[in-house]
């Protein structure tokens, strides 16, 4: 559906995107994940039309996207800041995009009403954006984008401005909506949990390049590089001769292993506990995660071990 072919973009000395290629399917929920400055936002802005690549091609259902102005693309973007028009009511904000399509007044009113119901803001059409909570604003931004029925919806850090509780609700809401409207979603985020919980597939970016594209579980269980292993979830990386091995904290046992160390710190999170263990000859402590409360205490000697199958070989 969306094909990104060897797209590059430089800003002076900085290479924001270096020959990035991606293939995103119809109806997919796709995440671009990476730390800030990795190029994911530049790619998003290229898709929306606010940035032009130096080289490469982008096609949507075979149609060249790059030659279309932003207002002619069948794509909508939900801005990180939401970018709601402060001088218009919620209903006017949502109607704005439909007015540009020269639809009839009846049709516009009907569709605005429908989409307000869809995002659960049926009563708030006459409010100004400033009179809404963060979560409500986000729903308006989402409604304003999907009411145009774009073929592709781009979401820039959709949950970052929300507090934790609202974020969890909105996460479910986004998935439900995506199922309901059947639009292809591309979300940009620096938050690996957000990407993992939302997306069908994730592309991990680092320094302008794509490191790995995989489904969340595969990405978590089989990272290919040190960067991905480290960035996606907590991980322990061990050097075994020339080889690098990554072992997830929850795969490490605290007894019966060969790696001896002492417990430096224990943090209790309710469902799980995180134990950091200092091991002689290692700069970083080894992180171990156990279910429930910890069975060991600070200062205790432990012998760490894991099943060979849980150690994932990775490249530098």
């Amino acid at each position, binding site marked *: 559906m969306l094909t990104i072919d060897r797209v590059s973009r430089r800003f002076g000395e900085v290479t924001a995107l270096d020959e990035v290629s991606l293939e995103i399917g119809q109806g997919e929920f796709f995440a671009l994940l990476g730390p800030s400055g990795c190029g994911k936002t530049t790619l998003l802005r290229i898709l*929306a*039309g*606010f940035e032009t690549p130096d080289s490469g091609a982008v096609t949507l259902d075979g149609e060249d996207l790059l030659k279309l*102005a*932003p*207002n*002619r693309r069948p*794509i*909508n*973007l939900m*801005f990180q*800041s939401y*970018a*709601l*028009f*402060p*001088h218009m009511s919620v209903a006017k904000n949502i109607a*704005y*995009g439909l007015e*540009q*399509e020269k639809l009839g007044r009846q049709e516009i009113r009907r569709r605005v009403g429908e989409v307000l119901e869809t995002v659960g803001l049926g009563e708030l059409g006459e409010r*100004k954006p*400033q*009179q809404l909570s963060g979560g409500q604003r986000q729903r308006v931004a989402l409604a*304003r984008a999907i009411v*145009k029925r774009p073929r592709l919806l781009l979401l820039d850090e959709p949950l970052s401005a929300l507090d934790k509780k609202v974020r969890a609700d909105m996460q479910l809401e986004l998935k439900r909506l995506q199922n309901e409207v059947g639009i292809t979603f591309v979300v940009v985020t620096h938050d690996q949990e957000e990407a993992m919980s939302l997306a069908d597939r994730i592309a991990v970016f680092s320094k302008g390049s794509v490191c790995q594209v995989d489904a969340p579980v595969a990405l978590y269980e089989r990272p290919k590089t040190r960067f991905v292993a480290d960035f996606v979830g907590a991980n322990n990386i061990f050097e075994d001769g020339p080889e690098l091995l990554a072992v997830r904290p929850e795969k490490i046992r605290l007894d019966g292993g060969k790696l001896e160390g002492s417990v430096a710190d224990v943090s209790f999170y309710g469902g799980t506990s995180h134990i950091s263990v200092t091991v002689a000859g290692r700069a970083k402590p080894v992180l171990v995660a156990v279910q429930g409360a910890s069975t060991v205490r600070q200062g205790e000697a432990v012998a760490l071990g894991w099943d060979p199958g849980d150690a994932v070989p990775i490249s530098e």
Partner: protein
Amino acid sequence: MGKLRLVPLWITYVFLYLPILVVVWMSFNAGRSPYVFEGFSLRWYGELAANDRLTEGLVNTLIVAAGTTVLSTVLGTLLAVGLARYTRSKLLDAVALMPAVLPDLVIAIGLLMVYSLVQFTLGLWSVIIAHSVFAMAFVTAVVRTRLSHADASLEEASRDLGAGAFRTFVRITLPQLAPGIVAGALLAFTLSIDEFAIAFFTAGNTQQTLPIVIYSMLKVGVKPEVNALATALLLVSFTAVIAGQRLTKLGESRAHD
């Protein structure tokens, strides 16, 4: 102790407003003396209304101020938007604001030379254009400041939702800038109303603005009707400033509450 700290404030206010109060007070003087108040009367307002040179000057000044306001606000706003959205040149920025700090004489002489070069007949139009040159710089500065606080992603959102560049400007950019534009227009109006040097050079012999008329009257001695005139002008300026502030507040509260 708390009251004492307000003393400098009051001194400053007295310093600022005493001359104005004196003029307003003396405009109601029944007598002819500029120093002794001889009783309340509207006599000088009557004389003012009967003085054709002054009333004509007042009308000319209001026409010039209105024309300058419209012309400089439109051009200044466009210039500010152009500078903020389409260039990154610090030099262009500085050059745009230059007429605000240039000595009026330089602008006046320059314009007079341009007018005679293109053989433009001097009149109210030549003053309007001349005033717009320096008033525009003030409008640009005010609108530019407002623009730098405006969220550029709103314009991108408008484009993203299918609006072209022109519709985006009219429906999103302009409403965002409205308070700045009103403030700029007001500034242009008040700057033009009492401007002397540029008007003196660029006005024709027949259609003179009020400051020029008053100046020529000074040569034969001030008559108290000038006090009445100053009070009338004060009223116009005050009304404009208060109306502008109201409009700005209205725009702000619409944008922020």
